[in-house]
Every structure is written in C-alpha cells, then in structure tokens.
C-alpha cells in the first residue's frame, strides 16, 4: 500500500525511534559519567601523552596524558545538565507565563508579550552574555543566563496554544462543571497543548547544548576545574594536529545529543 498517510506515519516512526535511541544513549552516557569514569578525568600522566584511541584509552589521551574518554564523560555531564537546567527553568517560566497571558488575555498579556518581543529582538546569545556578565561565569550561571534568553520563545509557543484553546467548548464545559481557571489550565488545556510544547522543549534543549558549547568555547561559560564539551573543544583546538581524536570525540557526542533530541522532537510532533 502506498497510502501517503501511512508512509508519513512510518517516516515519523523511524525518526522517533532513531531520536529516542540516540537520546537514550547520550543520557545513559551522562548518567554513568555522573558516578563513574574509567580514569580520573583531570589526572595527568606524563608517560601516556598523546596516545591514539586504543582499548586502554577508548578515545586516546591528550597532551597532558589525560584520558579523553573520561574527560568527555565529565564534559557531557556538565553540558547536558546545563541544557536540562536551561530547559527546565526557561521552559517552566516561559510556559507558565505564556499559559497565563494566553488564557486570560488582557493587559498582562499585552505587556508580557511586548516584553518578550523586546528580549527576542536581541540574539539569545547576546542576552545570555549580558546575564552572565551580571552573574559571573560558571555552570549554573550559564544555565540561568540561557534560560532567561530562551523564556520568550517558550512563552510564545505556550501563549498561542493556550489562547487557541481557551474558548473551545471542552474548556467551557469543564468550567461549567465548576472547575477553576487553574484546574482547567492544568487538567485540560496543558495535556492538549503538549503536542506543540514538547517539540519546543526539545528544540530548546538542542539550542541550549549548542549555545552552552559556544559560550564555553569562547571562555565565558564554565570555569576550570569544571569542564563542558564546549570548553573541551576549545582545549582540543590547541592540540588539533597532535591529538585530533580529542576534538572528534567531543564533537561526536555534541552532535549525537543535538541530533538525537532534535529527531525526537520531529518524531513527537506528529506522534
């Protein structure tokens, strides 16, 4: 059967499965890295400098003799937790603000939407830079900065969804059964807007991973002894000719995280 609908459904299924698999792999890698790394990621070893990948050092070693696999594990933990915190804080505040303004409309809606548009007028990274310069560098500071920069985009998606649903008969019915505004928003509208909110969250995660990497790469993200994948990439650049496997492994994990979550979002959109 070559029903176009069936074909489309199949394609989304593949995206969903591939995305879920990649995301799961990255999350597993992150989770394990939180409790166990094969070596101490910061321990230098003059005897094992610049070794290419072997069974002993899966991703090789850098010019200080540090085990890159262990370092990448640590970097992934830092990057993923920063991105998760960004999505949690930015998504939480943004979705809540968008829900309230979209559902109630009125003056608060006008003011907050204007405010959001103003923030959006600056590139997210610039906004994040501004916040970091106020908070100082560091892992959670970067997460907060990115969260602030991302709030308007989450707010917009959620505002549109809530504004579109609030006049629908099923919402009015729920009100007629005596449900409060909060009850209606939480029990009825939120589940019905998830299909549009979830992709926004996954895109937000991907953007957060990339933005954090960019900021750390530029030296305005995490500070040593902390190290994220972006920070490591800038380290790896300094020894690109001597230990190309360092940059490649950081890049590969970054790519896996962004691609996996991105595919997951695409797949969820029509699931």
């Amino acid at each position, binding site marked *: 059967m070559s029903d176009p609908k069936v074909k489309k459904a199949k394609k989304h299924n593949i995206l969903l499965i591939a995305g879920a698999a990649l995301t799961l792999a990255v999350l597993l890698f992150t989770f394990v890295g939180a409790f166990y790394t094969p070596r101490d990621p910061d321990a230098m070893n003059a005897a094992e400098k610049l070794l290419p990948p072997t069974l002993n050092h899966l991703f090789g070693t850098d010019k200080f003799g540090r085990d890159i696999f262990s370092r990448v594990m640590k970097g992934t933990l830092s990057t993923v937790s920063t991105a998760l915190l960004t999505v949690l804080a930015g998504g939480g505040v943004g979705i809540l603000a968008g829900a309230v303004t979209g559902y109630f409309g009125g003056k608060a809606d006008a003011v907050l939407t204007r405010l959001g548009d103003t923030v959006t007028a600056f590139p997210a990274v610039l906004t994040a830079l501004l916040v970091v310069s106020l908070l100082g560098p560091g892992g959670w500071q970067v997460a907060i900065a990115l969260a602030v920069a991302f709030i308007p985009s989450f707010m917009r998606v959620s505002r549109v969804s809530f504004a579109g649903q609030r006049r629908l008969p099923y919402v009015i*019915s729920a*009100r*007629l*059964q005596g449900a409060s505004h909060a009850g209606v928003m939480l029990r009825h509208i939120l589940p019905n807007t998830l299909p549009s909110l979830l992709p926004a969250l996954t895109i937000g995660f991907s953007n957060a991973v990339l933005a954090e990497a960019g900021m750390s790469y530029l030296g305005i993200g995490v500070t040593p002894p902390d190290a994220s994948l972006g920070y490591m990439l800038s380290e790896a650049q300094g020894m690109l000719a001597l230990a190309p496997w360092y940059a490649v492994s950081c890049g590969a994990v970054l790519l896996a995280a962004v691609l996996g979550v991105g595919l997951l979002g695409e797949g969820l959109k029509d699931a």
Partner: protein
Amino acid sequence: MLEIKDLRIRFYTRERDAVGGINLTVNDGEILGLVGESGSGKTVTAMAIGGLLDRAACDVSGQILLDGTDLLTLDSARFRKVRGKTLGVVFQDPSAALDPLMKAGRQAEEALLIHTSMTKKERKAAVLQAFAAVELRDPERVYDSYPHELSGGMQQRVMIAAALVTDPSLILLDEPTTALDAGVQAEILALLKRLNAEKRISMLLISHDLSVVRRACRRVAVMQRGRIVEEGEAEALFSSPAHPYTKRLLEAIPLSRLRR
C-alpha cells in the same frame, strides 16, 4: 425554579442589544422550550445563566434567580459551586465539548471531584449510575473510553450524565440534538423527557428547530432579535401561532417532520 427578570445583554462591540430585556420562567419540574432563529440570542441567554459571559466585553443587567439566588450577583467562587451542583449544562456538539485526551468516566465525575469529598470509588459508582440512567449500554466500558471511541449519541449521553451526576435542579440544554442524526435525536429527546418525568429535573431546552421543542416541551417561548415575542402552551402555539415570526418558524419545518 429559574426566573429571569428583565435580562439585558449588550456587547460593547455591537449596536443592538444581543438580549433586549427578557422575562422567562422555568417552573419546577418542567421542560421549557426556547426557540428562535440563528442569532436571536438563545446561546447568549444560556451563557448568562451559566455565568460564562466575559463581563469585560459586555454589559449585563437584570436578574437571573435560581431558587431565589440572583446568579448575576454571585462572585466567581460561589458561582463555581452553583455551576457544579445546582446547574447542569449540555451543549450542541458533544465531540467538541469533551476533552479529547480524558476518558469519558473521568470527565463525567469532574464536578464530583471538585465539589464533593467523595472517594474515587464513590465517584465511579455515581458516574456508572448516571451512565445507566442515560441508557448507555455497557457503562463500565464507556467509563474507560476516550471520546473518539464513542459515537455522537453516546458522547451526548456522557455529557448529559455529567450534568446529572451532581443531582442538579436545573439543566440547560443548548441545541443538544442539532449535531446528531434524526434517529439519535429522537432517542435523546425521549431520554430527556424520561429524566424530567422520573427525576423531576427542570430543563431549559434551546433549539432553533420547532419540531424538536414540540416533541419535548409543554411550554415554549419564542425569541426573535433578543426579545421574547410569544410564549405559551406548545400545542396552542403550534396550532394557532399568534406572532408572524412564529408562523414563519413553523413554515420552516418540513411537513413530514411535523406529522411525526
């Protein structure tokens, strides 16, 4: 029971009053029919009774007395209680009025969840009883079904059950059968009559279709452009309409359906 006195509703965006000072009474245990063509103000009247008008967008005056309490003077918290207990409401399109992601049973028990301290078990028992009362076959299965798994007629029965479950004294029905096909329409009307007779629940049945109202109601009010132009016993009104507008409404019904 329900007494509407000089209800006047004007939307700020419109010149003409949507409802221009109507008086309407639903007596204890009766089904009052409210008919009128599209745009005559039937739904706006129902929305006012249900407390769903956006007070920032329109001006409402007059009184809506439900068992002696003026609904228009209630604050929103007390209105919620009235909505959940004394007043049930059923809309035209049941497929849109049900939350697509929530099982029918959970939706039907929402008012109980909000307004009573019943346990989960007690709520389910009450809902199953209401499902049986509206003649849903296999209530257990319906309880665990999502709206899209039910037919239009079953969905509307779920809505009626949801309105019944709190033992209200008045149910508002705004075009409850318009979205359903003729056979199902007749079943639902018969069901409403039976519920009215057995449980003595008062109903306000709104429809643009005189034949629907004729089958279910003894008393009918005719609405045109925001006003009640004629009111009286259904049979008298049908055999000798006094107002030209009522005559026109009558003429709009195909003969075959009048004879039924």
